[in-house]
């Protein structure tokens, strides 16, 4: 309402459009500007407006204002004094068109343009129009150019720099706005446009813009930064709640807390969450928690149940956002709108979609912890059982050991082992002695083999062997020689003069010289002779006479002797031949 009042105060000093004048031009004297307050609303309401008491005053002001605007817009028609005159002026324009726009008295283009301009000036010099901004251009000069449109129509608009500078928000395409404007006709180009003097965001568009702009501002300040977010305590003992004391939200929160984690203390700060004073109360409650209970309260839930954008608006207010941002207690925002975010959501440490969800986020579920405790208990028992079993098994294994089961066997085994060792020791020693003895014997044998006598014997034996071989060879040679001698002997025998003797021959030898007597000359009387006969018979004789033969030789003797010699000579040749 305050806003509307502000608007009205603005309305007061500007001329207003009275649609009845347009619709019912011949209703000349009737309407006055008495329904200023609702001029921006519906046109129908304007007409129904009541009292004319203030009419004169308003009209008077309007007249004064219009003079100014007329001079600005260069509308040639001059309405010096009163609205009555201006009304008649408008009618004059209409009349002009009606009177002169005939076949007989056609208007010039300029005249027509002027007429249009006049009519517009009179009838639409001050209108409120609702539409969506589009095609916005911001000229270097500071003027704004844009179109206002709705589903079907579109009108070009201009907003001069002086007016644009008074805007409290940035105009953007797509914004739904309420514009106060004069309709102007620009004859030179045949264009009609609105000269916008005031522009206000309307409804959702307005809130949306304010939301977005505040969000951007606070975000730029870093209030939404992730590093500002604090972790919530795992097991809060005391929970602060800032919400309506009577809404569904607080009931939901209590319900969830009691169900999930009853071991908790809740401090509720009941506040108005919508309408007048809501934002101040919310911010004050948050600050009170921070200032007085920050060492008690572990976590704070700030929120309310769902509602329209306007209902939730308190949580988009800057004072609430700053109180949350300044709060040293971790804050969970719970502005009951599943999809849309509030500024509180961005500033808070954790955003919950609903109050119930906030309660769920803030406390753990005790049933889950009961389950966990149950699980821990089970694990504890199992682990302990396992440990005991393991220990039992170890004990059993130890008890089962032979040492405990058959101790005498262990002793017996020790004895056996001792014996065994003894035996092995003995074996080792004896074996060693034997081996040493064998070695000694071996050495002795080798030494004996090297003895000189044995060497000598060996040599002797070798020598004897050699000698034997020599001997046998000599014997063989000897035998051969002997055989040969025998053979030669036989042959010699055959040739022997003795053998000749056997056949009757005899040999007479000089007994003194032993020489055979061959010739008579060889003997002289008295000489003793020996005649050899066969079989070795010998006859000794003495020479009595010797007679030489024809050759001077003794006849008898030389014959014999000569034969012998020849035979002897032959034998010699024969033996020689044999050898």
């Amino acid at each position, binding site marked *: 309402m305050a806003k509307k009042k502000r608007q009205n105060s603005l309305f007061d000093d500007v001329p207003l459009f009275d649609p009845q004048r347009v619709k019912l031009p011949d209703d000349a004297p009737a309407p006055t500007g008495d329904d200023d307050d609702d001029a921006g609303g519906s046109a129908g309401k304007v007409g129904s407006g009541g009292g004319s008491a203030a009419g004169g005053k308003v009209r008077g002001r309007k007249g004064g204002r219009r003079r100014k605007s007329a001079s600005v817009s260069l509308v040639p028609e001059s309405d010096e004094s009163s609205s009555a005159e201006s009304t008649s002026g408008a009618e004059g324009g209409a009349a002009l068109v009606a009177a002169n726009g005939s076949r007989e008295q056609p208007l010039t283009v300029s005249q027509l343009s002027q007429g249009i301009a006049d009519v517009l000036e009179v009838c639409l010099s001050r209108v409120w129009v609702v539409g969506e901004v589009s095609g916005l251009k911001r000229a270097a000069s500071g003027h704004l150019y844009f179109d206002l449109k709705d589903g079907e129509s579109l009108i070009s608009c201009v907003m001069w720099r002086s007016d644009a500078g008074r805007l409290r928000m940035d105009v953007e395409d797509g914004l739904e706005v309420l514009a106060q404007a004069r309709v102007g006709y620009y004859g030179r180009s045949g264009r009609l446009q609105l000269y916008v003097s005031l522009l206000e965001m309307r409804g959702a568009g307005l809130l949306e813009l304010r939301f977005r702009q505040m969000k951007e501002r606070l975000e730029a300040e870093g209030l939404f930064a992730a590093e500002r977010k604090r972790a919530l305590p*795992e*097991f*809060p*003992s*005391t929970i*602060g709640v800032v919400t*309506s*004391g*009577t*809404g*569904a*939200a607080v*009931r939901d929160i*209590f319900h969830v*807390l*009691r169900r999930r*984690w*009853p*071991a*908790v*203390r*809740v*401090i*509720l*700060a*009941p506040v108005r*969450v*919508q309408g007048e004073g809501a934002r101040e109360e919310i911010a*004050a*409650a948050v600050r*009170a*928690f921070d*200032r*007085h*209970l920050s*060492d*008690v309260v*572990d976590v704070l839930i700030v929120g*309310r*149940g*769902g*509602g329209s954008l306007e*209902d939730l608006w308190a949580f988009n207010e800057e004072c609430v956002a700053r109180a949350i941002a300044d709060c040293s207690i971790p804050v969970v925002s719970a502005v*009951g709108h599943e999809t849309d975010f509030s500024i509180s959501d961005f500033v808070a440490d954790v955003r919950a979609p609903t109050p119930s969800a906030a309660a769920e986020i803030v406390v753990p579920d*005790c049933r889950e*912890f*009961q389950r*966990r*405790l149950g699980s*821990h*208990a089970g*694990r*504890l028992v*199992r*682990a*302990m059982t396992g*440990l*005991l079993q*393991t*220990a039992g098994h170890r004990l059993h294994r130890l008890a089962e050991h032979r040492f405990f089961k058959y101790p005498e066997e262990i002793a017996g085994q020790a004895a056996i082992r001792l014996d065994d060792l003894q035996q092995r020791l003995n074996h080792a020693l004896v074996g060693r002695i034997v081996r040493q003895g064998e070695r000694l014997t071996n050495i002795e044998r080798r030494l004996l083999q090297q003895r000189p006598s044995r060497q000598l014997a060996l040599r002797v034996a070798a020598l004897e062997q050699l000698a034997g071989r020599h001997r046998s060879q000599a014997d063989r040679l000897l035998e051969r020689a002997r055989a040969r001698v025998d053979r030669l002997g036989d042959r010699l025998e055959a040739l022997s003069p003795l053998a000749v003797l056997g056949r009757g021959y005899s040999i007479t030898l000089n007994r003194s010289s032993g020489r055979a007597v061959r010739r008579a000359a060889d003997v002289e009387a008295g000489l003793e002779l020996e005649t050899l006969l066969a079989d070795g018979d010998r006859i000794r004789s003495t020479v009595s006479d010797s007679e030489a033969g024809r050759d001077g030789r003794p006849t008898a003797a030389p014959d014999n002797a000569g034969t012998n010699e020849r035979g002897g000579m032959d034998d010699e040749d024969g033996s020689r031949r044999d050898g």
Partner: protein
Amino acid sequence: MAKKAQNERQSEATFACNLRELEQIVAALERGEVELEKSLELYERGAALIGCCRKQLQQAEMRIEKMQIGKQGVSLEAVEEEGGDDEDQS
């Protein structure tokens, strides 16, 4: 008031501590690295902790207080039961 709250917070902290200690004991026993005598000791401690935690969970009764903001500070006033008034805000 604050002192009482402090005590409560400590008891809550004890719940968290107890739970943590319990988890450590269970883990240690499961690893089986402790001596038998020590493990029996731990087992007893763990069983006691479980009982303690259970009691803390079961005994708890949610308490609600209302905060009034005064000039000097805030005052708290216990509330028996949430109003049950169904005036709707949402």
